């Protein structure tokens, strides 16, 4: 049987080439985006484009100006913007991380519960869906004020808001993953007289992992967005959300600062996403076509 080809694609050399290629693609992508931005800016200003918005330094600052803004002090004589951005990012990250973990655990637990009971699925699912149709901006002040009266620190309340955004995709995808085993997979377990718990641990949970990780990727970025939005009604000044509100007010005089902060938000979301992808590579052992 030695003639049968065994596909071993994970040799270190090929892995390194793949890695280098990926990094190259990301760099090329950034360069192309940068070029397109500046090209539109240049053409727009030259031709005086006013639709959908007038092209000028206020609406489309040069990217190098945004980067330059990081090095400029926020107050005369104070530390540069990047120093503040770093601390805001850490603060928001703390909220997002707790929200991500909370939302993930709640979503996961909910899915396990729903997977085991058709009655619960029928009864509970509509309310879970309804919970997501209520705008987060309406929920956020209630959460902050409500939890605040119970003595919960504001940043934890923000994490709860982030969890509110993340539990839903995790619950839905995990549920689908738990129900994904084919009848034959279950029949095999039945032939071994396996109990429910064994079926959950040995079949349903491992089968659900690719679905769980798809959900966690959504949840990773959603938790960052949730944390940023959550800071707004909580009037939290220590995070990226607070900074965005601030820089919004001074947009006409210093648009680069808002854009620079947006960049940090994007980087934070990207970092969260990357961590989930990394965890997926370490944990999920499935046929290549199953791993997104």
């Amino acid at each position, binding site marked *: *049987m030695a003639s*049968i*080809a*065994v*596909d*071993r694609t994970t040799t270190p050399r090929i892995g390194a080439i793949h890695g280098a290629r990926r990094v190259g693609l990301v760099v090329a992508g950034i360069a192309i985006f940068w070029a397109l931005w500046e090209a539109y800016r240049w053409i727009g200003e030259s031709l005086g484009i006013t639709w959908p918005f007038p092209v000028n330094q206020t609406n489309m600052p040069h990217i190098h100006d945004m980067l330059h803004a990081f090095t400029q002090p926020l107050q005369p004589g104070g530390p540069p913007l990047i120093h503040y951005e770093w601390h805001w990012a850490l603060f928001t990250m703390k909220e997002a991380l707790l929200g991500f973990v909370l939302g993930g655990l709640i979503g996961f637990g909910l899915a396990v519960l729903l997977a085991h009971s058709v009655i619960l699925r029928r009864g509970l699912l509509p309310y879970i869906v309804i919970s997501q149709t209520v705008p987060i901006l309406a929920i956020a002040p209630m959460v902050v004020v409500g939890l605040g009266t119970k003595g919960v620190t504001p940043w934890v309340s923000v994490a709860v808001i982030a969890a509110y955004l993340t539990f839903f995709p995790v619950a839905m995808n995990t549920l689908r993953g738990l129900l994904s085993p084919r009848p*034959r*997979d279950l*029949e*095999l377990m*039945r*032939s*071994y*007289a*396996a109990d429910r718990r*064994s079926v959950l641990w*040995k*079949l349903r949970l*491992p*089968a659900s*992992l690719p679905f769980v990780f798809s959900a966690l990727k959504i949840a990773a970025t959603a938790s960052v967005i949730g944390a940023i939005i959550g800071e707004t009604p909580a009037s939290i000044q220590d995070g990226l959300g607070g900074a965005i509100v601030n820089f919004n007010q001074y947009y006409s005089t210093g648009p680069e600062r808002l854009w620079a902060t947006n960049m940090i938000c994007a980087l934070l979301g990207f970092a969260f996403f990357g961590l989930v992808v990394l965890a997926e590579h370490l944990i*999920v*052992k*499935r*046929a*290549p076509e*199953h791993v997104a």
Partner: protein
Amino acid sequence: MNDRPAVAIQGLSKRFKTGVTALAGIDLDVQPGEFISLIGPSGCGKSTLLRIIGDLIDPSDGTVEVNGKTAHRARLDHDYGIVFQEAVLYDWRTVSKNIALPLELLRWSKEKRQQRVEELLRLVELEGFEDNHPWQLSGGMQQRVAIARALSFDPALLLMDEPFGALDEMTRERLNLELLRIWEASGSTIVFVTHSIPEAVFLSTRVVVMSARPGRVAAIVDVDLPYPRAARTREEPRFFELVTEVRERLAGGEVAA
């Protein structure tokens, strides 16, 4: 060997909720150590019969005993191992871990599991592939993993539902030989569903010919070819006579598939 049949089926019938009668009035005894093939046209209920023996579905009427117990009790006691047409391996498990799955469920210690898996890898000639994942194996290799898994806890009875149906002819013939070797070494009883006449004759001590819907036992052909059987067994005149006999029995019931 005792006289108690490995499988005893009496007056068994199966009607599905859709109104289809899949099986009617099946009586069949399988003796310990036998290799029994169930053959019949598509839809004659041979897979259904196998699943009823395995207590994966319930009969509408009649009784099934496995090793002198109800089929249900036998399933709870892990009296049989089953192999399906698809290998039904779990993607996230390596070859070793797939084979060890029933042993984990039976709470064998890690050392005992490891030792048993090594034996089985040798038995199905998959040494060196223990750390591969199923998608890295050919169909024939996957099916051998499934066979090793079914044999892992040394069940007295092996139920096989067209295990080689999806494989090419050459792989199938080689696995037929391997299966005979394993059967002779283990002394277990095998109930084997197939729709290949030569395969049924080559492997079995007896071939149970079933008629089309509703499935009935149309005939039982004793295969008097001596064991051990080898590739040249397929070239003996007696082999062809038996193949012809099974074919005629099949045609006698209904149009053969």
